[in-house]
């Protein structure tokens, strides 16, 4: 990653919002702290996302529709729908998450191995939808970080496909939470080392 004595220390711009955690050079240009090997790995990862459909409600039916022969996610490399957290890397939360279900969701999220991505499908998972109620979580980002929010009640399978394509673009640009955290860690290590 470059010789610390030669390059000046790199200030890191914070990791919130849509601009990912990048490292800004003193002359204003931005550098993503990735290597060519990681670009290859990202290309491999984005073309073989293995979903874990955490389907709770009506959006799970549209997710089933998305898996079936009419829309067919296997064209995106995501046919292997595994319900085990250890064997998947994309958590699609489809449907309303209630307060009773939230610890289960958090436990499953924590059991997944990095790199992991989260798509929040449907307005109930994004913000609670029209259930402003005593038992409904008002958005899963109260508990877990989300990469892509797909609106719709339920979103048509095309909308979810567009969400998956957007996630693939985010992976190749390095904008997902996992990549931003990795970049921030590397930048702080470089800063500490330099």
């Amino acid at each position, binding site marked *: 990653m470059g010789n610390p004595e030669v390059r000046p220390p790199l200030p890191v711009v914070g990791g919130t919002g849509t601009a990912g955690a990048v490292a800004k050079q003193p002359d204003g240009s931005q550098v993503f702290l990735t290597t060519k090997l990681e670009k290859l790995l990202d290309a491999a990862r984005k073309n073989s996302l293995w979903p874990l459909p*955490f*389907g*709770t*409600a*009506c959006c*799970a*039916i*549209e997710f*089933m*529709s998305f898996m*079936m*022969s*009419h829309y067919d996610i296997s064209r995106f490399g995501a046919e292997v729908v595994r*319900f085990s957290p250890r064997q998947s890397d994309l958590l699609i939360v489809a*449907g*309303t998450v*209630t*307060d*009773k*279900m*939230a*610890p*289960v*969701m*958090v*436990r*499953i999220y924590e059991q997944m191995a990095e790199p992991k991505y989260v798509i929040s499908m449907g307005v109930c998972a994004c913000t609670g939808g*029209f*259930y*402003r*109620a*005593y*038992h*409904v979580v008002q958005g899963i980002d109260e508990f877990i970080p989300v990469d892509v929010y797909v609106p719709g*009640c*339920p979103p*048509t399978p095309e909308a979810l496909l567009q969400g998956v394509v957007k996630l693939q673009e985010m992976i190749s640009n390095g904008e997902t939470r996992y990549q931003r955290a990795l970049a921030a860690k590397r930048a702080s290590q470089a800063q500490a080392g330099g």
Partner: protein
Amino acid sequence: MANREERLAAIRRAFPEGSGVVELAGGDMQTLRVDRQALPALARHLKDDPALDFKLLLDVCGVDYPGREERFEVVYHLTSLEHGHRVRLKVPVREEDPVVPSVYGVWRAADWFEREAFDMFGIRFEGHPNLKRILCHPAFQGHALRKDYDPGQRWLLREGEQEEPAWAKEAQEDEDHFETQVLNLGPSHPATHGTLRTVVRLNGEVITKAETEIGYLHRCFEKMAETHTWNQVIPYTDRLNYCSAMMNGVGYALAVEKMLGVEAPPRAQVIRLILSELSRVMDHIVDVGANLNDVGAMTPFLYMYQGREELYSVLEACCGSRLTMSYVRIGGLSNDTPPDFEDSVRYLLKRIPKLIGDMETLITENRIFRGRTEGVGAISAESAVDWGWTGPCLRATGVAYDVRKAHPYLGYETYDFKVPVAHAGDTYARYLVRVEEMKQSLRIVEQALERLQPGPIITDNHNVALPPKEDVYTEMESLIWHFKLIMEGMKVPVGESYGYTEAANGELGYYIVSDGGGHPYRIKVRPPCFAIFQAFPHILEGHMVADTVAIMSSLNIIAGELDR
């Protein structure tokens, strides 16, 4: 079928005047006000007396009237399969002493319904074997459907506070001194169709004890209904049984129209019937397909799902959304169907039987499927009625009870169709009944298409339905009706009513209480899967672990309807 006076005479033989049973006049069905001391004896009498024969307990719920001295009221709905009559019992209790004797000993169907009344109102049922919270989580404080409970007040559930059955925590040995194992299935599980959790104790592979936990999708439909207007509840009803969303909306609209005294125009009724039957086909496609998928046959599910996709495009052309249609309005429908609706439904009537035929060739006489499902999950007819079962699961045990034949609505008495029954009561019988029901539904749709005449699709009573847009843009009077209906909501007269239809899973009932305002006072949904699923832990005992998924998916448990 005896009328009200004869039934009252049969009751008065055992409970003369002054023994705590009073008949309330009027109402949509016979209503009795019962003192709580008289309740257990009256329940036993209603079930055993041959003239009354109320063997099916449909619903137990609570209603909160904070202004009254006796604040809570527990309402029971009963029906007789033999005679066809219905009765409603109301037991008032005070807030300081909310205890009612349980009727679990008379009808086992009261099991989960009473637990729900306890969870939502805090009413305790004496003699109930397992009175715990059922829908809200264990760390929830307060009782959610009381009128003084703020709808947005949430309670956080932490990781360690989740529910564990007491018998699961202790180690147990079987007769050979091997330790038995406790296994947790769900709530995030490929085969639990949503969010259902079952805890089983295993002796090898055989289940010796089971307990289910629900409430993982409790979305507070009933509280949301109290804070929205009558028409705004319709999108919420779509999300109850989301596999066949139209039928919930039709059931709700029929129940409210009964209270209002308004009838939808004939064209709207025929379209509602066509789309309800197509929704029934859609629901059975998902259920049979998921059942097959769980026992390992993945191909037929892929074939039949195409039928569902084609149904979606017809629905999307009618109302704009595939799954959660919000097509029904109180008084009719929101829009007319497109001009080529008839042609595309006729195309579907040719296409779907081919897909069902492909599935039947692969599955029905298949030795592996029959070995996996025959004899599995069997239940007897008396047991099923005692647990409160209705719908295809009850018809698979031999009891031919279908609301479309018993108490027809939307003109079902004029259509020629048969009700499929089977006698074995096991998973294979439920599969056969559902496949036959799909074929009968397509027959009904074919007959209904003949009766489709042009006409209005919503009532012109502007206290109930929005006026047509042309008038709203040009006339002042229509604009004022429009304004009042949106801002205040329609006013439903004071009273209560129980409206019921045959949904895909069984009898879907709406018990609606109105206080005359624009918001419902109380809506209680009687979900068919709630009664069916409470028998599941008892069916499971003696089966093996792999049978759990076969039985659960054949019962068609939809969590949106179960937990509301």
